[in-house]
């Protein structure tokens, strides 16, 4: 049967992507100023072999690889869920203002000199920022708002958070603080610890549960909002869960890694044809593709020769933005003809 065929396809795709993620994960543990072969990586992971290799793998590279995999996954999942909600392949997780608000939360604590850029309070502030943006969004747009109002209100909140971040840079107590903020904003996975993983993880799990909950609604939304509502989906609740889920997930990601753009836009797009464009089946493969993309990008920044490591957020933007433009060009015809 056709349905089994598509379910089967999704399972195979997920397994292939899963292997890819595991492979990239192992590579990510081996790549850096000190190159380690897979054998030393495995030995290091289980606490055997060369002591230096153990420290490099377990304390320096493992948190980094874990964060790349988790953040990539939550960005891919958020992008897929938002694109399903909005029925638009150009939607990105930054749409409702959560990443900008999370960044502002983090920057505020750095600029007040409360903490340095890698301490514990910073991710907490960023997550508070992201969740505050959701509260503000619902306050501004109203609890039963339509999508256009939500998007516009999100844009306004993004701008406000952006202005706050700019003000913090502007008023930074000293050039070092300003530099710290600027670098932090670029988005990076360098020098993170397992504590960062533990801070972000609960919010990401919450986000994944919320976003995955509505996969059937995303499928129904293929027919538009009215038909989806008539098929028994309460769209107010769906919108709320997606917005909160994206804020929690992306907020947690920004909290530990700064702003890393375009993964949420690109990952769903890459796997969509393989799930026969089904927005419900897209979620898991999009999350895995996001993981693979961010792991690859984070490996690439360690391989590209430059003085000082290129920040991974800069690399994803450099690749993602032209991809976005290409996507718009390809869809320009359908987009300009949209009437409903």
């Amino acid at each position, binding site marked *: 049967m*056709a349905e089994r065929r598509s379910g089967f396809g999704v399972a195979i795709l997920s397994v292939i992507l899963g292997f890819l993620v595991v492979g990239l994960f192992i590579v990510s543990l081996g790549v850096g100023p000190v190159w380690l072969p897979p054998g030393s990586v495995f030995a290091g992971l289980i606490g055997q072999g060369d002591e230096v290799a153990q420290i490099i793998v377990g304390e320096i590279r493992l948190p980094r690889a874990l964060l790349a995999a988790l953040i990539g996954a939550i960005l891919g999942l958020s992008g897929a869920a938002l694109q399903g909600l909005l029925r638009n392949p150009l939607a990105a997780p930054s749409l409702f203002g959560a990443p900008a608000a999370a960044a502002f939360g983090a920057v505020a604590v750095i600029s007040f000199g409360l903490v340095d850029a890698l301490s514990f309070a910073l991710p907490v502030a960023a997550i508070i920022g992201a969740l505050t943006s959701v509260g503000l969004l619902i306050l501004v747009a109203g609890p039963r708002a339509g999508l256009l109002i939500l998007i516009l209100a999100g844009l306004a909140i993004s701008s406000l958070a952006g202005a706050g971040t700019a003000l913090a840079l502007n008023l930074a107590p000293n050039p070092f603080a300003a530099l710290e903020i600027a670098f932090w904003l670029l988005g990076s996975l360098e020098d993170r610890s397992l504590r960062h993983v533990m801070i972000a993880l609960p919010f990401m799990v919450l986000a994944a549960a919320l976003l995955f909950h509505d996969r059937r609604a995303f499928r129904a939304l293929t*027919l538009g909002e009215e038909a989806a509502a008539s098929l028994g989906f309460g769209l107010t609740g769906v919108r709320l869960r997606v917005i909160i889920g994206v804020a929690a997930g992306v907020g947690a990601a920004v909290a530990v890694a700064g702003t890393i753009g375009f993964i949420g836009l690109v990952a769903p797009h890459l796997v969509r044809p393989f799930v026969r464009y*089904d927005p419900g089946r897209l979620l898991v493969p999009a999350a895995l593709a996001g993981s693979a993309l961010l792991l690859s990008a984070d490996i690439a920044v360690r391989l590209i020769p430059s003085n000082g490591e290129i920040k991974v957020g800069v690399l994803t933007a450099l690749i993602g933005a032209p991809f976005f433009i290409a996507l718009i060009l390809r869809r320009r015809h359908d987009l300009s003809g949209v009437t409903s």
Partner: protein
Amino acid sequence: MTDVPGLLHIAGLSVLLAGRQVLADIDIEVKPGEFVVVVGPNGAGKTTLLKAVAGILPVKGSILIEESPLLRLSLAERARRIAYLPQGHVFHWPLAVEDIVALGRLPRGGGADLSSADGEAVKKAMVQTGVAEYARRAVTRLSGGERARVALARVLATEAPLILADEPTAALDPRYQLIVLGILQRHARAGGTVIAVLHDLGLAARHADRIIVLDQGRVVADGTPSEVLTKLLLAKTFGIDAEIVALGDAPVIIPWNVI
């Protein structure tokens, strides 16, 4: 027919949208097996009436479906009893036709992983509407008429007793207009109920058991086609001078002049 309990019972229904009274004091009783066509000039509230019955608009008044209040039903239960075909037949992703039709099974738990009952219903709906031959094609690549039939197949696949269809024939050539209305008529003959909004008075007169005329949010006429579609009513409601010719049981309406 009078002792059959109503499938749908609407009493004192009013709808206020953005401060405008779109429907006022609507009382309608619909029985199983009826094919009801709602007609009326643009802006009369026809689409709003269908949406209200579909349960996707805030309303005042009472709507009972099979004797239970519409708003008391769980969303899924409501969706199993009422299938709604909106205007326009929009598809946002290029899903295969069979996957679109399967969306009609969502209220019954299907949608992607179909049970054999789901599979049967989907197949039957595709055969009925003549879209089975492009089951694997992307829906966005079909013509307007083909898309309209896919949309109808999705609604049929739900196997809901009440079908609400908003301009189901809008993009269709004459042959498929007749085919689509024939499918809806058969649904009613088999004991289901259909409420359709149509603009074509001739098609309405030819297929409907009963015609409800809406004007400015109120029911201005309700009865069989020959009772309702009179020269006087067409002049008052639509502002047209029409020729009415009897052909068999059905009146044939020919809009002739603007009054």
